[in-house]
């Protein structure tokens, strides 16, 4: 696994802001360590650009541990690049070879407008969460004891697996319909699987789906690209569960 150094060509989407037209631009970058992460490679390119008095490339990133969900990037036509189960910040240059040309684009989706270069606006996800992605419990030192309500381990584990979603938006970017159903399904599922979420189950799913539609996300046609590209392996079962919850909510009496 000794580190090598490779030379690459990059075709990167540059766009000044939301109101201007963008285009792919070409850059050469030499002596990239294969131990570097993809974002460290972009750091290196930006350092080179700044030293040439050129404008660096804007991209979103923060934790660089694959958990904050801030990094994105469509790399060679795939969300978060060629490795499955990986965020861009955890993708390493050992996945690439000397002489490669790498295409880097922002998430492409109507509901995620471009802010600048590779940075997009994902606040639609926040608004979906605000519509119902919570249990309406106020802060209090007097909720019941945490162990007074046993939860079957399988349910707790499944809820955790759904809750592991990092909200990066790769599902939307990978979907030919620009659908956010994997994201919304994961949140709906987390609460649907836990007794704490039952009380508001009906309103939650209706409100979140309504907001999802208002934001301009498309519908699900069961292609499954989202599941393949999801860096956290969120399962399609969550979409099925959301559909069941939605159906159930529609059948139950209106308020």
């Amino acid at each position, binding site marked *: *696994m000794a580190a090598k150094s490779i030379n690459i060509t990059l075709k990167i989407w540059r766009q*000044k*802001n939301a109101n201007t037209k963008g285009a792919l631009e070409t850059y050469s970058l030499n002596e990239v*360590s294969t*131990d*570097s*992460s993809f974002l*460290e490679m972009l*750091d290196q390119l930006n*350092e080179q650009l*700044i*030293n040439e*008095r*050129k404008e*660096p490339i*804007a991209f*979103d990133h*923060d*934790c*660089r*541990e*694959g*958990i*904050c*969900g*801030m990094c994105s990037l469509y790399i060679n036509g795939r969300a978060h690049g060629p*490795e499955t189960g*990986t965020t861009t910040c955890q993708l*390493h240059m050992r996945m690439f070879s000397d002489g490669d040309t790498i295409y880097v684009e922002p998430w492409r989706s109507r509901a995620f407008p471009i*802010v600048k270069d590779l*940075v997009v606006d*994902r606040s639609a996800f*926040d608004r979906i*969460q*605000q519509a*119902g*992605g*919570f*249990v309406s*419990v*106020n*802060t209090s*030192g007097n909720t*019941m*004891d*945490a162990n007074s309500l*046993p939860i*079957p*381990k399988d349910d*707790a*584990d499944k*809820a*955790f697996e759904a*809750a592991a979603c990092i*909200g990066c938006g790769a599902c939307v970017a990978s979907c030919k319909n620009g659908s956010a159903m994997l994201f919304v399904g994961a949140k709906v599922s*987390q*609460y649907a699987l*836990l007794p*704490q*979420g039952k009380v508001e189950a009906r309103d939650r799913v209706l409100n979140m789906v309504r907001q999802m539609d208002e934001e301009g996300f498309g519908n699900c046609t069961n292609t499954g690209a989202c599941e393949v590209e999801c860096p956290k392996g969120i399962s399609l079962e969550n979409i099925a569960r959301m559909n069941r919850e939605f159906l159930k909510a529609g059948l139950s009496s209106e308020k």
Partner: protein
Amino acid sequence: MSVLDSKIPTGPIAEKWTNHKNHMNLVAPNNRPKIDVIVVGTGLAGASAAASLGEMGYNVKAFCFQDSPRRAHSIAAQGGINAAKNYQNDGDSVYRLFYDTIKGGDYRAREANVHRLAEVSGNIIDQCVAQGVPFAREYGGLLDNRSFGGTQVQRTFYAAGQTGQQLLLGAYSALSRQIGLGRVKMYHRHEMMDLVKIDGKARGIIARNLVTGEIEKHAAHAVVIASGGYGNVYFLSTNAMGSNVSAAWKVHKRGAMFANPCYVQIHPTCVPVHGTNQSKLTLMSESLRNSGRIWVPKKKEDAEAIRAGQLKPTQIAEEDRDYYLERRYPAFGNLVPRDVASRAAKERCDAGHGIEANDTNEGVYLDFATEILSKGRQSAYALGDHNPTEEKMRELGKKWIEEKYGNLFQMYQKITDENPYETPMKIYPAVHYTMGGVWVDYNLQSTIPGCFVTGEANFSDHGANRLGASALMQGLADGYFVLPYTISDYLSNEIRTGKISTESPEFDEAAESVKASIEKILSNNGTHTVDHFHKRLGLIMWNKVGMGRNEKGLKEAIEEIGLLREEFHNDVFVPGTAEELNQELEKALRVADLIELGQLMAIDALQRKESCGGHFRDEYQDAEGETLRDDENFKFVAAWEYNGSDSTKSTLHKEDLKYEFIKIAARNYK
């Protein structure tokens, strides 16, 4: 009296908080909508505070620099959260959590604050479960626990290696609910640039819209700073790339004292440094020390052969391995506190036993082979196989490990390209957390009235060393269960104030000075990038204000950082304009503050002529290399007053620490 009034309530330790709460002033529900509160930062401490204050009925404005409040770096906390629930029937109690935390902090934390933290710890777990946080559970449906360093009980609640994520998403869901109800207005991609004071009180902030570059004025009756720690002063740390000290530093510049800046936590188990283009370090959770055994080769020649690639760790015989933590600290073994484990690793590597083939040969093994076999046997028995083959045990053991730590093992493999199920992890200490921060009193209020500071951004609860799984506890305790009470006490005097206007000379002055500093840095037209300076700062800090410090090195660091500050302001080059998304500009403004802070850290470390917790002075150690405290002369909180960008001009104020309920003693984990 000192300018530092800690406002610790009188009475027995276990009754202080209850009595204090009972006698605080309240703001009636009908008055709360007349009062505005600003919260800066949306990690555990900020999101929980903003949500709780919104629920109470205050008008809240919350700010984060990320694209969503859910990204705050609390999300990356891995291992767990402590709470004195005693669900495991192993003798835990509020007192024991209190005692462990004081001792873990090497007797440099405030008793009253820590006891309160232990008291509310149980409520946090109740609250989070009620919110739908999916903690790990046992087959009977009850919550599972594990152990963390510096304790002999199992009090850590967890969600695989993603506990911070689940807790933050819980707080984020509570915050989202308040945003949806219109009680909290969220400003994402906004960075606080300054604190505005009117008549000595915090009355608002200046913020920069990071997308448009607009400089905005926001007024409030109180300001809460929950902006996290300053580990990025070292350039390489486990912090997120955007983590910074600026919000805390701005309130410091406006008059709030900054306490114990030299108390830094170097976490023992991180993936070692690999190269010069590396941007950050990655933590491998302390929870792994429940299952992993730390060792280096006993023989130097074995270590050399490993570094040269001629030997593999699995080829080193059991008797040729030095499990140095188990050898030196048999009572706590691999679960000694972080500062102790980090120093022990450094000691072995300095002695030539390091196993990583990088520039400094710094690395030790964290080995899961023993645990894989033992848990594999246990799983086989549970399946009715009382005579499992070794192969079967290995298979089942790996499954057990995957369930407990799967995401960590996967992360390790992605970074290093090695499979930790088959070969031991290579780890080394890295900067992780900062115990120092803005000085606050018992009410979490800084020395500026109306400016409250919570979570890692304050200094209050961890003394000179934080125990594992206590940061999440403190962040949520501050935000859910402490601040909502104490800030209301302060705000009870504000019900007649009326709306605060941003049309005032104070707001104008602050906004203009922010614009001027941005203009200055953009028109500098220097020759080096921001990262160039940040990396140089990081190297000085790591080499001279890192794990081992001494008078000579600290004096050099103070001088070098002073020169670096001048060079930075004369020679940094920041491309682009102020009226757009400009990530280099954001970095430059943060690094300017980190440089000033770095110098203060060295000054603070120099004045503290003792070793305690994360602060280790080579001159002050016992015959076995353990920290040597000087309680007679240094049992105080060092709180610094800002007197200009040259931190050597800062004034030291002392808050004496009183131990009334715990007998102060040498810290012993043997």
